[in-house]
């Protein structure tokens, strides 16, 4: 990698002030996407602000109808958390299927959301549960947070601090994984809370998205058959060496049905 200056603030406040002062700085959370990019010399930030020492951005809290997870909480911690298992078991299972063991022990929720990789798992859960992304400046609803390929509404100087997930009656994530990267070729997160159904798809397109047609059908009847004929048009989906848009479109329906089936089995 290229040389850079390294900062390790102990508080969020300190991190925010560094981010304002230091030019061409990049935030480092778990580093599971950023470090490989640096090692390949594809990015050369002048400075790295390592958030790893900021305790206030860590931890999992289940209070009332909300599960709040600190932005620096690692995937393995989410996967192993009792609170998550009680509150939203589908989220624990999703975290347990991210990447590989090393990625899960190092990668963080906030890092994954800020990066918004088109095939990452967490964006599906955040959008599929209608979570709220909290930053040092504001609270952002999931429907507004993800804006495009590796893009979010986050502004310069803004740092994700935590994510608040509303509990669901039932939820499940069904992922058809890329055998190489273990990212999602197509991943579908389905939730139902008080008759309100959300279906969020990752991997299939440049950015996570909801399938409203499926949500309407499932709100009528929450069963796999309800959506068997709902097709997502392939036009805006991704095509690459791993899967064509046409195949991804097909998988969206298959995985959505499987998620519904799993959600039903979970209750």
């Amino acid at each position, binding site marked *: 990698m290229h*040389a850079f200056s390294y900062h390790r603030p102990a508080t969020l406040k300190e991190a925010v002030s560094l981010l304002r002062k230091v030019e061409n700085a990049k935030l480092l959370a778990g580093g599971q996407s950023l470090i490989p990019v640096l090692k390949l010399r594809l990015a050369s930030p002048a400075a790295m602000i390592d958030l790893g020492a900021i305790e206030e951005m860590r931890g999992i809290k289940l209070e009332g109808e909300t599960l709040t997870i600190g932005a620096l909480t690692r995937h393995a911690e989410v996967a192993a958390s009792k609170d998550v298992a009680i509150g939203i078991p589908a989220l624990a299972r999703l975290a347990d299927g991210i990447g590989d063991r090393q990625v899960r022990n190092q990668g963080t929720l906030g890092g994954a959301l800020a990066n918004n990789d088109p095939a990452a798992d967490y964006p599906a859960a955040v959008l599929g549960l209608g979570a709220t992304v909290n930053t040092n400046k504001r609270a952002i609803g999931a429907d507004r947070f993800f804006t495009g390929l590796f893009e979010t509404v986050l502004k310069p100087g803004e740092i994700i601090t935590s994510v608040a997930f509303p509990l669901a009656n039932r939820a499940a994530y069904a992922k*058809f994984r890329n*055998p190489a990267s273990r*990212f999602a070729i197509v991943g579908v997160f389905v939730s139902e809370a008080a008759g309100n159904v959300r279906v969020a798809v990752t991997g299939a397109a440049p950015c996570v998205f909801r399938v409203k047609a499926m949500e309407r059908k499932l709100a009528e009847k929450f069963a796999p058959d309800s959506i068997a004929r709902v097709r997502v048009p392939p036009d805006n989906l991704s095509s690459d060496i*791993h899967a064509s848009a046409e*195949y991804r479109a097909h998988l969206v329906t298959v995985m959505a049905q499987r998620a519904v089936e799993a959600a039903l089995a979970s209750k």
Partner: protein
Amino acid sequence: MNAPLIGTSVKRKEDYRFLTGGGQYTDDVMLPGQTCACFLRSPHAHARIRSVDTEKARSAPGVVAIFTGDDLAKAKVGGLPCGWLITGVNGQPMKEPPHPPLAQGKVRYVGDHVAVVIAETLNQAKDAAELIEVDYEALPAVVKVADARKPGAPAVHDIAPDNTCYVWALGDKAAVDKAFASAQHVTALEFINNRLIPNAIEPRAAVASYSRSDDSYTLYVTSQNPHVARLLMTAFVLGLPEHKVRVIAPDVGGGFGSKIYLYAEEVVITWASKQINRPVKWTAERSESFMSDAHGRDHLTKAELALDRNGKFLAMRVTTTANMGAYLSTFASCIPTILYATLLAGQYTTPAIYCEVTAVFTNTAPVDAYRGAGRPEATYVVERLVDTAARELGMDRSEIRRRNFIKEFPYQTPVALLYDTGNYDATLTEALKLADVAGFEARRQEAEKRGKLRGLGYSTYIEACGIAPSNVAGSLGARAGLFEAGEIRVHPTGTVTVFTGSHSHGQGHETTFAQVVADRLGIPLENVDIVHGDTGRILFGMGTYGSRSIAVGGTAIMKALDKIVAKGKKIAAHLLEAAEADIEYDRGTFRVAGTDRKKTIAEVAFAAYVPHNYPLDKLEPGLNESAFYDPTNFTFPAGSHLCEVEIDPETGHTRIVNFTAVDDFGKVINPMIVEGQVHGGLAQGIGQALLEACVYDPESGQLLTGTYMDYALPRADDLPSFKVGTQETPCTHNPLGVKGCGEAGAIGAPAAVINAIVDALAPLGVRDVEMPATPERVWRAIRAAKAKK
């Protein structure tokens, strides 16, 4: 002490070292004053180099030296040689374009070497490399095998304007054509044997140093055959006196063929170490390995099998185009010819076989041997044809095989090989039992109830290992010998050091070879150490590839042991005051026949080194013997692989639910190590069938599978728990009766997997699925078949 060691699963002697971090790999070598090298590589698949401006880079911090192709040309550094000359059907030798270690005039694949930057630290070398300004004139590239000979395709080399390296053939074309003309049934298939990237866990690395005091060089390098590397480098590339160069291949973490070859990097840094008079280290990063290790396979094939109505094979006709990549790697030319077409008889009595192979150049990394090397490709051709033919004729797939199995040995195939022995019925029978083929139909029905498609695939493969003999290989174009050397040093106290020209890079030779020696000498295993991988300590060696180590290297050791025993008998006869003819030897004990008068090997060794009571007038002191062994024939491991898959028709995902391999490796020295070799080979074979594909952009020639994000290596959870078994039909022409086991898994598995997938999908009307059988390909095959109906 005298319990037999051969045939027992003793734990690997080398594992304590490896598991406790004591392994010494090339990158662990740290020499005083060592510098770091970084190679600037071509970002283009094909481009003319207008100029290389290194001025800015030279003044970057820490830079010691920068060399380009021009510098090497001025120093008269030669090109990397190809070790096998193929003569084409037209009687013309293959086209051998120059292969300069650093590009001269043109770059020909993404990753081709343009310059080397040597600096105090690796980061300084990399930083400086970014400052080199190369003015490229991008040229159109030819990437796919199928495109290489199309009219108007860009020429990779001026000397081969049609990108053809050679057109070569084997077999009796007239006899084959005649058999096809009157055959009652013909099965025809066309397929691609997918291109693979080897992915040894240890990337390639080299550390070169030069000593002014005696004008000598030492090169540590990740090599499967350090003597060959030295010979090629000194005689063909650098023009150095061979005895002034020591090549050491210390612990090496996997090769699979990719570390057989002489590569540009080690040659360049060896040369550079003298120019700068300091040691130079280079270690490939993983992305460099993806780009620049020699790749494997990459065939385009049309294959036909002619049969009578009873399923008897009458003839086979195969036309293959094989990708050589941009340059001829060390053994590239012999893989799709000598190691491929000769295997097309498989386990069968097919009386007439004709195979024509066209080797082409493309703007991709060089292609050479990769685990199995030619034989997986041949097995895929034969076994896909056989399963398909059985289905077309409505025959049971074991039955069609049994009807055509070779049953009498020795057997001369129509494609040059003479099989010495085998028992194909026995391995198939055992595999059918182990795989519970009788219960398959019930399992299939149960899976169907769950909405899954179950299939069973067969692959009864043969391979030729221990490539030999040298004179025959020489007449076929080999530019090297194919023997092996070994030396046994019995120390005065009776412990033993063995020097072998074979090289272990994961195979466990330190254990297997020690078992052979300890068994023969009747001494404890811990009293035997194996030394390998150092031209400074070992007399000579051709190294390890083609599953040859135990069959060829092991036999050289056996021959040296024979000499030890023969001399020991002379010494023992003297000590026991008996006639030499009366001395019997059995695992460590010399005995006067019919008496209890005896001497142990340790007593004999002591007498040899402290020759007070010794026949000095007739016999030299010491007990140290060496031998070279040139095999009289190949060995022919063979086996039956059965794969059972379950396919999710909604996603196209294939899961291997059972994999059974019953192999005949002849005599097995260490069953545990053999089983490990089979497991590893199967993982790679299954990887080829289901997951792995090296993909270049067909237009730009950019490598699209350049990291593990895109290149899918099999992981533990992609594989079932294997059921493996062995049958022993000893090889008839080496003293241990061994055949070799390193490649069998990778050879047999791909056809078994694809045959299983096709079996599962056959009721829908699917006839073929291309490797790797990714979920999308399977899903599309199902969809296309349904659309037809």
